[in-house]
């Protein structure tokens, strides 16, 4: 849709109206310009639904039933807000509720594994530790695992050491949700969420937000806490994975299990059918299901 500098010659574009909505011949669009708005004259026929209320008032008047003040005030309704993220169908009555939902559940989401983290910093740490092959390599030789508490600055050789530090020094709970290791990942594959958008190859595995996991997740992760062997864990995980997407995770896990920093580049491959720069993750991922939804969009 072109934006002219002055008023465009309207007469040349005018069609004789036909049908209910008078549609102009679509303008020549720029290459790939997806915007389609053009001004439209709208002609409404006698039986159009927009005319219903007025017609009823008219006929109430004809039948001597008209009163100027309505019995009940007709309800003027306010638009609802809805989360349009593919797979999410949460609906809200106020903008504030929407913003809270969005900021809590969709804002800091990892592009690769769709996990939602509560802050940009934790997201950065997550991406670094889970999806950065360079990290895995460096971690073999240096202390790479940062303390999660902002301002602490300490780094540790392993995630376990960091966890101990968090528990001992910073009094964190042992099952702090934002410090899951990669190993834990597979067990929290709960129910598949409905795939709303088939254009996007969504791996609907993990819960979308570690912060609001169901109790079941905790149970599973607690089981892990008690020192299951890697091999058992992996096979358990294999049993749970049903989709082919899982092969990526499997590859990651076995890589981790074998201590090789050979995380396949597959992990960072964009999984959407349209292009998202791989090097840049704005932190907003598509989310499948969710908890805390208020209502279904109609």
């Amino acid at each position, binding site marked *: 849709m072109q934006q002219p500098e002055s008023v465009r010659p309207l007469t040349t574009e005018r069609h004789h109206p036909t049908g209910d909505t008078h549609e102009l011949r679509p303008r020549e669009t720029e290459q790939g310009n997806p915007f389609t708005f053009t001004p439209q004259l709208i002609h409404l026929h006698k039986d159009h639904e927009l005319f219903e209320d007025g017609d009823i008032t008219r006929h*109430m008047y004809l*039948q001597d039933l008209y009163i100027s003040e309505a*019995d009940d005030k007709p309800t003027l309704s306010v638009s609802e807000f809805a989360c*349009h993220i593919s797979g999410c169908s949460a609906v809200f009555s106020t903008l504030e509720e929407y913003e809270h939902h969005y900021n809590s559940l969709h804002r800091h989401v990892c592009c690769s594994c769709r996990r939602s983290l509560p802050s940009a910093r934790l997201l950065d740490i997550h991406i670094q530790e889970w999806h950065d092959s360079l990290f895995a390599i460096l971690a073999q030789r240096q202390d790479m695992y940062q303390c999660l508490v902002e301002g602490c600055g300490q780094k540790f050789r392993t995630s376990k050491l960091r966890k101990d530090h968090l528990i001992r020094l910073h009094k964190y709970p042992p099952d702090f949700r934002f410090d899951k290791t990669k190993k834990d990942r597979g067990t929290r594959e709960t129910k598949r969420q409905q795939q709303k958008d088939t254009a996007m190859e969504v791996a609907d595995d993990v819960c979308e937000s570690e912060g609001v996991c169901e109790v079941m997740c905790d149970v599973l992760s607690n089981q892990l806490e008690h020192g299951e062997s890697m091999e058992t864990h992996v096979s358990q995980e294999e049993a749970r994975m049903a989709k082919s997407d899982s092969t990526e995770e499997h590859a990651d896990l076995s890589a981790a299990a074998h201590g090789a920093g050979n995380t396949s580049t597959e992990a960072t491959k964009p999984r959407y059918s349209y292009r998202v720069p791989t090097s840049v993750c704005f932190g907003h991922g*598509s989310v499948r299901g969710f908890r805390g939804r208020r209502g279904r969009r109609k």
Partner: protein
Amino acid sequence: MWRLNKVRHKAAGRHGDSLEELKLKRREHERALRQARRDRQLVSKRLLLNEDEDQPEVTMDTNSGEQDVVSLFHKLQQTGSEREARLKALSKALRDPSAQLAFIKQENSMHLLVGFLTGSDATCRLQAVRCLHELSHSPHTNVAPACLPATPYLLTYLSGQSTKFTELCLYTLGNLCPESDVVKEKLLAQGIIPALANCIENQRHNLAVVEAVGFTLSQLLQAKDAAEKIIPMVLASSLPSHLLSVLTPDPDFGLAPAIECAWCLHYLTCSTEDNRVLLAHGALLKCSSLLVSLGAAVAEGNKEEGMELLICPLLRCVGNLLSSCPVEDLSTQVGDVHIVVALCALLQAYLQTQPALARESAWVLNNLTAYSSALCSALLTFNLVPGLIQLLPFSQGINTMILRALANIAHKKKEFCVQLAHLGLLSALCATLKMADQEMVTLSMDVLFMLVVSGPQVAEEFVRQGGLSLLEAIQYNSKGDIRRRATHLLEHHLLSYSVVKTYLLNL
């Protein structure tokens, strides 16, 4: 003439109904009307009350009513001196639907009535037409067709001079019109349209008769196939110019005649998309200037009772006439740019009490702004845009129409876009993009595009308001065409070096 007030006050004490019961009845009635409309069966009849009546009184005792009717009929068949009194009694008895049925079942009953209708006794004529009027109002479907033998005479009498008599003839005909296609065809063949045209022309000064003509014509024009047969005949007659001349409400008589004529015009304009004839008569000019004065009155708080009954059809006429009006004629046809002021006043005034009327006003605003740069400019000049932006939260079609109108403005010139952004449309869009209504989201994206490409200041302002992350989120929208719009905006217009640089420099 229809007295709006009386209905309300008296209705409360009627037949022992409490106010609550009355409300219930009204609501039920309303529901029935809505269903009838959905079935394309929305039809109403009017009952003209006697001078001594305030409201339709129906006797509860149907048996005696039927007996009365039969005995009266027999008595009337005999010659005698009490015919007037008996006819009057008959007309009262015929208020009852079962009595109506009983009457037409009597052989030669209609013949009798027609005899009185055309007889030499004027009082008997009046009473006879009163009887026919009661019959025409019957809820039973086989009663009204029984009145057909009388119609040629009713039509003839339309050129008479007796007000009450003419009124009764008109309302009787008006009640008969929607009965069936057979009835309509007969009436058309008997020349109802020229008769109505003559009547309104000759009785122009008599507003009660004018109102009755308007009602009868509106009944004809509502027919399902009106567009094919009836409307062309009406347009070819002198009726359109008479209808237009009655539109301005008379301060003494009230709104009623204007209301009827406005509804006639609405049925004329909405049934066809070629309104050249009406445009040539100056219909758009007349209706829009009337809206200007009505809007001004409403803005001052002078909401006369029943005003929306007139405003509604006028809005519709303007809306539909606009869609037939060639662009080059717009300025002459619409005349006063203050029409936009009037529309915004109507929008605000009726938003809470009659949202449907507000929605229709918004529709007209869309049609006004679609092709007219002058009217778009007027909205800006008269500072009406902030008020419109504040209406964007309201659903059920109000916000989509208003956003369309705002989009029409943006579509005209980049300068308008800058002004719109300055007046708060950008931040409003940040909210409307999150609405559940997909049409709002799509429209918002398109408007956002127009604003953003209008100039670097707008783009920067949008980025300053957090627009980048908003669009990034939209890139994950469940709808593909929305995602593409967001991506296009980001890649081609917002993530350009200059925009981001300016943004960063200004941090």
